[in-house]
């Protein structure tokens, strides 16, 4: 009995000494960008970061940084943080894990209008006000698909992050615009918070020729030199896939596929 207690003690000691010995897992995250992350830790990327840190036996430490241009250079590569959560797998300046989910840009309309929009080639778009977000100094990718179809005059621009980010979904709910085309997780999260029911459908085509994709697989990213950390994170993601799926569902991420569902589809 005593021996067993001692053993347990040792195990606890060993575990805590590991936690104490390994440095904190420093994650760069946007301080004000729900549903992805915020300072209060309310975003799904926050929750996934917590899962991963726990699995790695490391304390989670956030570095609050807006993910804009020069972000990787100034933060990840300089060692300000070690990990980014929610990065497209093909993003070249970093080393990415296997994706833990993928989603699509979606058309968001009011259900009561029965528009069922799902294609950039729908002729009804010609008569509609179409909300698209504005990145740094350009529109988000749906605007490019619209411009090819001579629909630029129909575009209404909206801010991409911070306080203003729900505005584009609210504008649909209030009938200020007919349709919004936004990245799925954002649409799902804010659509679930409107008084009126909204219809969300992935955009088609999924890849607008010649090379404009609208479905992206998202991963965790580390510095290119951090292969070991990447392998640890991959193992942790694999182990936690059921929890991750639960989290994504709780945040109403639409049309998502996790690594396992993708594997099954293949």
């Amino acid at each position, binding site marked *: 009995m005593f021996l067993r207690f001692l053993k347990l003690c040792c195990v606890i000691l060993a575990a805590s000494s590991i936690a104490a010995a390994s440095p904190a897992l420093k994650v760069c995250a946007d301080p004000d*960008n729900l549903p992805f992350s915020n300072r209060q830790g309310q975003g799904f990327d926050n929750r996934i970061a917590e899962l991963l840190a726990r699995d790695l036996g490391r304390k989670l430490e956030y570095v609050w940084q807006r993910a804009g241009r020069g972000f990787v*250079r100034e933060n990840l590569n300089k060692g300000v943080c070690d990990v980014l959560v929610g990065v497209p797998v093909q993003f070249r300046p970093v080393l990415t894990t296997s994706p833990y989910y993928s989603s699509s840009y979606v058309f968001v309309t009011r259900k009561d209008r029965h528009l069922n929009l799902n294609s950039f080639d729908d002729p009804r778009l010609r008569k509609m006000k179409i909300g698209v977000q504005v990145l740094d100094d350009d529109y988000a990718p749906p605007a490019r698909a619209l411009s090819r179809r001579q629909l*630029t005059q129909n575009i209404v621009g909206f801010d991409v992050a911070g306080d203003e980010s729900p505005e584009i979904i609210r504008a649909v709910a209030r009938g200020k615009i007919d349709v919004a085309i936004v990245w799925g997780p954002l649409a799902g999260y804010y659509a679930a918070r409107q008084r009126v029911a909204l219809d969300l459908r992935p955009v088609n085509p999924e890849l607008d020729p010649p090379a404009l994709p609208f479905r992206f697989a998202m991963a965790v990213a580390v510095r290119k030199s951090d292969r070991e950390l990447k392998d640890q994170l991959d193992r942790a993601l694999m182990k936690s896939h059921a929890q991750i799926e639960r989290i994504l569902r709780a945040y109403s991420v639409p049309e998502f596929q996790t690594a396992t569902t993708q594997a099954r589809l293949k």
Partner: protein
Amino acid sequence: MQEMFYKHRKAGTFEIPSCWLIAAAAVMACVLAGCGDSKSRAAGAQPPATESSYSAPVYAGKMEPDDGQWVRPAKDYASTRYSSLDQINVNNAKQLKVAWTFSTGMDRGHEAAPLYVNGTLYIITPWPNTLFALDAKTGAIKWQYNPNPSPSAKGVACCDWVNRGGSYAFGNIYYNTLDGFTVAVNATTGKQVYKTKLGDITKGETITMAPLVVKDKVLVGNSGGEFGVRGWLIAVDAHSGKIAWRAYSTGPDKDVLIGPRFKPFYGSDKGQDLGVKTWPPDAWKIGGGTVWGWISYDPETNLVFYGTANPGPWNSDERPGDNKWTAGIFARDADTGEAIWYYQYSRHDLYDYDGVNENLLLELPINGQQRKVIVHPDRNGYIYVLDRATGQPLSASPFAYVNTSKGVDLKSGLLQYNDEKKPRFGSVTREICPSAPGAKDWTPSAFSPRTGLLYLPHNNLCEDEEDVSVSYIAGTPYVGANVKMFAGPGGHGGEFTAWDPVNGKAVWKIKDRFPIWSGALATAGDVVFFGTMDGYFKAVNAKTGDELWQFKTGSGIIGQPVTYKGSDGKQYVAILSGVGGWAGAIVSGGLDSRDSTAALGFVGAMKELPKYTSKGGQLYVFALP
């Protein structure tokens, strides 16, 4: 006013003739004696240089009469930004002191030139585009006018929030608001005379340029994202605010105001509806060619001259063709807007080389013959000298390091693109020089008839470009062009160059770690003024480039210096300080690299900028004690 001056140069520097020093001393004495503004005594009194390795020709052109005020964006119609005031000269500039300052209370980039009219200094702020009328003696606010740009404008428009200034005419101040209006405000009372809507901000259309008043018309052009905006120049009636005419930069001839009087120099610009035919179907409707730069006016021929911006969208593969009438220059009848000629600097632009930079109307000896010309420093790295009547390029000399092209073929007018530097799908094109903001951006140059030199604030930047790759901002994935900028040869980001437009050569250069993003001002005191992004306002010797004086302002300078004679007879120099705007875009947008290899040259230098300066708009007025 005709001025003559001869210069000597030995061993790379100017020697100042001793008689000039005496003359300068005489100016000093006069200043001390309080005789105020004086005609340039030193000029004209100079004997011709007999033993000089360098000698710029005498400037024999006419300059506009100068009343010591500053009523137009570029001082005069010819866009010289030259003042005949000479109280502040090379000998006493070091004594310049702050007369007074004024905080605008805004922290966006301040790019405007102040106006000085009848004892009042007028300044226009970035969005929300407040117009302040300040007592030029004390800096006290006489009144302020707020156009209340639509709150929905915030966040809806892409791009920056800057304003590049206004014009005074008919007792009114004319300027533009970011949300697409032209306003006329009574210069005495501050009451709005009219407010005319020209642009539609919900389409990404904004207005940032300074309008020019020509006869009874206010000329205004649009700006906006490269996305979906179709460029135009509009003439607004100065009295009624009604739109008199509008000339588009793309589309059918009737929209571009191309008719029987249109006689471009090159055959390739002749033909029907080239603004439609040189684009894929309907692409001209979103083709860009905005008019966000400067306008010049020649009263003798009644022509206005202005440049058109780059074609859209940025990815050039999506718009095969010459993309007329973007990235070029138009000459138009000032009364009717009819196009007279056009010349395209960058045909089917690949690098975002807008053609909107300033056009200085000068008279220069070309091959022994005095010609009325336009001198235009373009983003593509060449200074063009064009015949003012026909648009024929007479010369095009590189003023910065250029490798995207191998020169301009004067026979065809074509920029000779270098195929090796063309951005390619999915692969990195390295060391594209100049980079997207060009060898020189909007930052206007100045010309001094006393030296015959052009003073150019400009960049020394190159870039690596990857046409398409996956990127993201805060959880929003996208595919975009990945551009990484860095300092060009020499490792410095900016240069201030004195340029001899006749011989097509730099005479001296001042290097700065950051791009020089302010305007330039030349004066008859042979002092040239400009500002740096780390906040220094500088006075340099027009002939040698030697620094005479500098003052560290509260923020980085991206504004345009002006000078005027106050009601007390003294010469003042005014500049808005307040970094941001395009400079901010350079810092946060242009220098995108996401790549550890990028921490060199200019990227490193720009990262340093926050250590030198922070945001905040403030007007500084300087004078001799």
